[in-house]
């Protein structure tokens, strides 16, 4: 079996693996520590599971520590998460105390020795109190903190400013801080079940298994049933396209059972869709990676018509599968869509319908944009670029 990094040689731009090996030599033998709040579930854990073995292979001694917390701690950090993303939250003194106590306890039990430590998101931020002498500590913020609830940010900020650097996923997520803030886009793993190549029969079997026939062009949006993803706007766009082009619409999203708003959105989408055999609403579990992969590969055009978006990695996933993406002009979607080159950015259902029709009228354009989309994703949004950014930051901080 090939070494892990070698498996990426065929899917990354020429020379990438060789460059990573040489870059790795500059930090060979250094110890790197990652700390977050969960080993499984969620995008951070998913990416760390793939990144860490790659760093090890490059000679960086990498460890991953996970916080142990109480129920109150996790409820508190969930509230922090929402508050930092701009949703008003009620956070009591007990909750703040629990947050600090859990961090103090973990500071005693975790091994925090390393040359460079990357502390992910707000949950472990106060561990900075226990930073070993001479170590470089980075606060890696994965969430959109552009408009945080002031009280929560004021509580966290004194911890954050004591780090050596922070990392954000988009410039607009940066806050005023006296420490350097670096920009590192998130990434997708081209070898994971969600993104790996699929044989045509695997695609058709999976998609038809979901009840979606492959007899007409498919317009697809993959996202949670959330107002900000504008699924109703996507249905409106489909209706306009459908007047002239026979096609199907597939809206595939996460389960809404524990999310009252999600259920409400799903209901609104069902109402908007009405009785139309060519509209498919698929509520998929978080483990449905292969199904998402097959749907994206079967789609003719992918929508991500958000009105507000963090980074929106579903766009990168679709680009990687060679699909033109019509996305809302917001957040990270604008980094991923180059208008006319990898897709189109729009501000309305009408705009989405207009570009969908333009593409459906011109299969050559779909092929050209799809090819460019794949190359752009290859260049910018694969895990190897993410690895390169982390290695580069290590070199920068350790010199």
């Amino acid at each position, binding site marked *: 079996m090939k070494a892990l990094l070698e498996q990426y040689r065929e899917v990354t731009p020429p020379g990438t693996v060789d*460059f990573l090996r040489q870059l790795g030599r500059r930090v060979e033998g250094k110890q790197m520590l990652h700390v977050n709040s969960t080993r499984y579930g969620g995008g951070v854990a998913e990416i760390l599971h793939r990144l860490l073995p790659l760093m090890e292979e490059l000679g960086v001694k990498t460890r991953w520590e996970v916080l142990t917390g109480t129920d109150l701690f996790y409820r508190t950090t969930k509230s922090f998460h929402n508050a930092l993303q701009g949703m008003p939250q009620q956070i009591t003194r007990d909750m703040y105390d629990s947050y600090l106590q859990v961090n103090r306890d973990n500071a005693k039990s975790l091994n925090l020795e390393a040359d460079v430590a990357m502390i992910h998101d707000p949950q472990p931020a106060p561990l900075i109190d226990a930073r070993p002498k001479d170590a470089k500590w980075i606060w890696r913020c994965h969430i959109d903190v552009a408009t945080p609830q002031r009280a929560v940010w004021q509580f966290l900020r004194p911890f954050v400013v004591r780090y050596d650097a922070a990392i954000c996923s988009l410039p607009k997520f*940066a806050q*005023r801080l006296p420490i350097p803030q*670096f920009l590192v886009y998130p990434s997708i793993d081209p070898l994971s079940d969600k993104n790996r190549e699929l044989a045509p029969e695997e695609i058709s079997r999976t998609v038809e298994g979901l009840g979606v026939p492959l007899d007409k062009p498919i317009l697809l949006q993959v996202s949670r049933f959330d107002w900000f993803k504008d699924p109703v706007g996507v249905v409106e766009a489909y209706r306009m396209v459908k007047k002239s082009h026979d096609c199907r619409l597939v809206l595939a999203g996460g389960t809404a059972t524990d999310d009252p708003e999600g259920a409400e959105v799903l209901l609104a989408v069902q109402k908007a869709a009405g009785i139309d055999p060519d509209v498919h609403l698929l509520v998929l579990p978080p483990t449905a990676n292969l199904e998402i992969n097959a749907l994206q590969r079967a789609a003719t055009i992918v929508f991500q018509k958000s009105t507000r978006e963090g980074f929106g990695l579903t766009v990168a996933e679709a680009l990687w599968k060679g699909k033109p993406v019509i996305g809302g002009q917001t957040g990270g979607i604008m980094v991923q869509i*180059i208008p*006319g080159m990898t897709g189109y950015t729009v501000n309305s259902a009408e705009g989405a319908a207009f570009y969908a029709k333009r593409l459906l009228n011109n299969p050559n354009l779909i092929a050209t944009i799809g090819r460019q989309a794949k190359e752009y994703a290859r*260049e*910018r949004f694969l895990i190897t670029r993410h690895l390169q950014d982390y290695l*580069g930051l290590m070199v920068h901080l350790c010199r």
Partner: protein
Amino acid sequence: MTDNRAQESFRFVSCMELREILGKRAMDEARLIEIIEEVPPDSIYYHTHSYYLRHAYIQGVFPNDFATWVALHAQDRVLGERLGVLDPFDFDDIESVRSEILTIMGDHLNHIKTVPVCTTGEPFEFVRSHVIEADLDLKVWTLREFRDGLARVDMGAVFNHVCEARLRKGRAPGDFASWIGGREGLGRETLAEDIVKVGRLGLSLEGMRGKILQLCDQALAAA
């Protein structure tokens, strides 16, 4: 001319850019000018030259971030076009690039009645870059070896030897042309001059690499 051996080898060194967010943002063209005046040169470099590394294979709307933002977010296509045609290879240093951008923007704003503002809610965010180099352990002595090496290195190496060498390291013709045309290198002055011109064609880095490879192949075929 045969494929002669250089006295000194050419070493391919690649690079990556670490991007630092400066926390300065503009919501209209007047503020954009003010910040362009005050940001460090590394930020002007990032928004003009680093475009080539970020769009090594696929070209964007315009070949610099200022042009793209005013066209897409301030809906000012005229200024976008004026800034978009600016060729970074026309300049020998970053301050000259900054000065030209300020002149173009100042002239444009003097001739319109209202200052275009961002209509999409997405401000222009200033970033600067730190370049991290890594020696690729690849030395070449002849034009054929150079050509084969260039064909297989990553795009960071092309950027490093073409853009970084010229603008940030003061090696005006770029490393490829310097070595190919230099006495200690291959001494092929005509080929070196042709390679310098490749930078002026408005190509992506992949396009530049392809063109340089083509020139090398022609020179080798003529040998």
